[in-house]
């Protein structure tokens, strides 16, 4: 791509603001830790072993919303922004629009995430005060100080405009180098460009429409489309875009098939957004719309399979690297989990499955495999690759890196199997018309296993954090500039 302009290549330091990338990663890891602790709190509550039950500010249900929001906006968004600050300037050979703007976005985004968490935790405590109702009737808005009633759109209403503006600035900051770039665009940039538009539109749709504009069943359709698009049009394209960037670099070979890359991108773009309603099957939303959502879901699963095939084609014949190269192992393990979730999705979206598993832990297992098993694993791979570069030291301990991988990969898979099975049991308990407590008691053993699986994932993350600290405080151990992967890992 760049061979003929090589002498003019800008220096890496002029392109990438490494300090900012590191800051984003640190913020991401902080919120990941918070979110995992929140997850553990809820898991303990379900097995009735929560020592803090009855403490208002540690209310498990409020912290469940912190759990999901800290993951989406605190961990994934921060980590992705960090990765983009590395990848986009290097792909376009141009720096982002402005350093000052970048730092402003960084601080504004942390403000958004912290305020979201604070709002969710403190908001309901003040909800009953008289001034709230008075303001609400004056302004004709519903004034929920805490969470709002859309999943992943819980962001309190007073934060929404700030977050929306932040997303606009993010788009401007990154689109500037992309627009200025000349010549053919690499696959990653297609995904990134589209993601900037989609995220902005999706956030606006989910955080304003169901609250202010549309009520009732049609509002449900908006909410369904929102949770769906947030995963499919914000997390997914950024994740795949980064895979298209990092995998060929680390394997030192091009992507197997350009044609399949095209199919994957355009298939995702067309089919993905058509499926929002599949989150609310059997609701009063008109049935023909539900069928449409189901069919396009099955279609998109076929399309994403082509992407996975493309990546398997890329590594074909070079499987040995999976043993030695840790980031590559993170990536490909994530892709296998991706394939599993997509396959599962094509089944569970059918009305036959929905009858049984909707509302059960099956869905929660699915959510963890996608969010943790796929996208977080990719991010961990990228962090494992980039951190030594960002802090100028090779990893302190390869062993801790390995433990991080195995605890995460195995932990989340146990959680997935366990919750999937729990979901099937719950579905049958409910249909059998046994009293509700029977289903709750029947779930206990699964929930205990889930808590341990969660502890395992958390332990993996702690190893990573400890390793990072030791690396950072340890002596400078130069990276070999000739090889792309940190020597300890290759």
């Amino acid at each position, binding site marked *: 791509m760049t061979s003929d302009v090589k002498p003019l290549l800008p220096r890496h330091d002029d392109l990438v603001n490494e300090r900012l990338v590191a800051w984003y990663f640190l913020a991401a890891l902080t919120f990941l830790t918070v979110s995992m602790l929140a997850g553990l709190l809820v898991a303990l509550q379900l097995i009735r072993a929560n020592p803090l039950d009855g403490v208002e500010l540690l209310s498990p249900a409020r912290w469940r919303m912190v759990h999901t929001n800290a993951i989406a906006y605190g961990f994934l968004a921060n980590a992705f922004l960090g990765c983009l600050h590395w990848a986009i300037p290097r792909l376009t050979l141009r720096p982002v629009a402005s350093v000052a703007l970048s730092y402003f976005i960084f601080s504004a985004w942390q403000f958004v995430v912290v305020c979201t968490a604070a709002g969710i935790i403190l908001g*309901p405590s003040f909800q009953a005060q008289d001034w709230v*109702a008075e303001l609400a009737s004056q302004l004709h808005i519903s004034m929920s100080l805490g969470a709002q009633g859309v*999943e992943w759109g819980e962001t309190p209403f007073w934060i929404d405009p700030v977050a929306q503006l932040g997303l606009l600035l993010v788009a401007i900051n990154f689109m500037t180098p992309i627009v200025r770039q000349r010549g053919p665009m690499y696959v990653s940039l297609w995904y990134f460009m589209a993601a900037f538009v989609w995220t902005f539109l999706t956030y606006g749709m989910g955080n304003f429409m*169901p609250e202010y504009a549309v009520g009732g069943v049609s509002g449900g359709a908006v909410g369904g489309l929102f949770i769906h698009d947030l995963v499919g049009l914000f997390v997914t394209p950024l994740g795949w875009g980064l895979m298209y960037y990092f995998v060929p670099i680390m394997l030192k070979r091009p992507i197997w098939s350009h044609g399949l890359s095209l199919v994957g991108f355009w298939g995702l773009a067309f089919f993905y957004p058509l499926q929002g309603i599949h989150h609310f099957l059997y609701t009063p939303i008109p049935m023909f719309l539900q069928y449409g959502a189901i069919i396009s879901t099955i279609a998109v699963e076929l399309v994403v399979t082509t992407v996975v095939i493309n990546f398997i084609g890329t590594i074909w014949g070079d499987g040995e690297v999976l043993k030695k190269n840790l980031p590559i192992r993170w990536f490909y393990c994530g892709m296998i989990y991706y394939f599993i979730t997509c396959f599962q999705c094509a089944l569970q979206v059918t009305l036959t499955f929905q009858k049984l598993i909707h509302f059960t832990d099956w869905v929660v297992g699915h959510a963890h495999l996608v969010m943790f098993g796929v996208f977080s694993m990719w991010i961990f791979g990228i962090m494992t690759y980039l951190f030594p570069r960002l802090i100028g030291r090779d990893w302190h301990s390869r062993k801790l890196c390995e433990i991080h991988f195995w605890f995460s990969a195995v932990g989340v898979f146990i959680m997935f199997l366990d919750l999937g099975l729990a979901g099937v049991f719950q579905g049958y308990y409910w249909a059998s*018309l046994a009293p509700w407590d029977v289903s709750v008691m029947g779930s206990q053993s699964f929930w205990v296993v889930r808590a341990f699986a969660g502890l395992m994932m958390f332990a993996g993350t702690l190893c990573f954090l400890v390793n990072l600290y030791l690396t950072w405080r340890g002596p400078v151990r130069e990276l070999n500039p000739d090889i792309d992967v940190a020597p300890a890992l290759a």
Partner: protein
Amino acid sequence: MFESKAGILGIAGIGFFLFAFISNVWTPILMYKDVTEKTAEEVVNYRVMAHFGDLNRRYPEAFQEAFGEPTEENCAAALRLGRQLYIGEGCWHCHSQFVRPVSNESKRWGPVSTAEEYQNELQRPVMFGTRRVGPDLSHEAGRRSNDWHAVHFFDPPLVSPDSPMPKYTWFFDGAPNKPNKRGLAIITYLQWLGTSLDSYPYYEQVNADAEEDY
């Protein structure tokens, strides 16, 4: 076109998004646009008023302080606050509000949900929910008494042994017979859910005559 900036931004970014928006969101909006969305005042009925009055009799001091007299207007205010708390406290992450036409749900919880039930201010955003750790609440009104709810919120295992539902002690001034404004509001809200239906009050049918659905 498939690899150009204009194609990706215009067709994939905006075009496909809009297409999905029109088909998946605009269509239901058009279909339901003539069903008017009722306000909280309009959905207050004699059934929820009976419970609102009962709360006033049981907990007069707290009630008078929180809402004054048990008028319809004050009931609407309590419903609004109750719904806000239902959302803010995250109840909807453990309880659903829709009865599906499958899985014997209409035996357990009453008639399958219809679009009309959701066409009111208190269902904006709609509280369908996505997870049931606890039972569906869309027809909860009248199934339990007010003092049952009070004790249940204070410490769920007191009335429902083995319950994993969290305690909501902050809905009370220290004891289950002293609900505060938040406690009264959320109980009022629960006693409203499903009051518009002919089947009110619907008592859970368990193990009665389970259909061979599976």
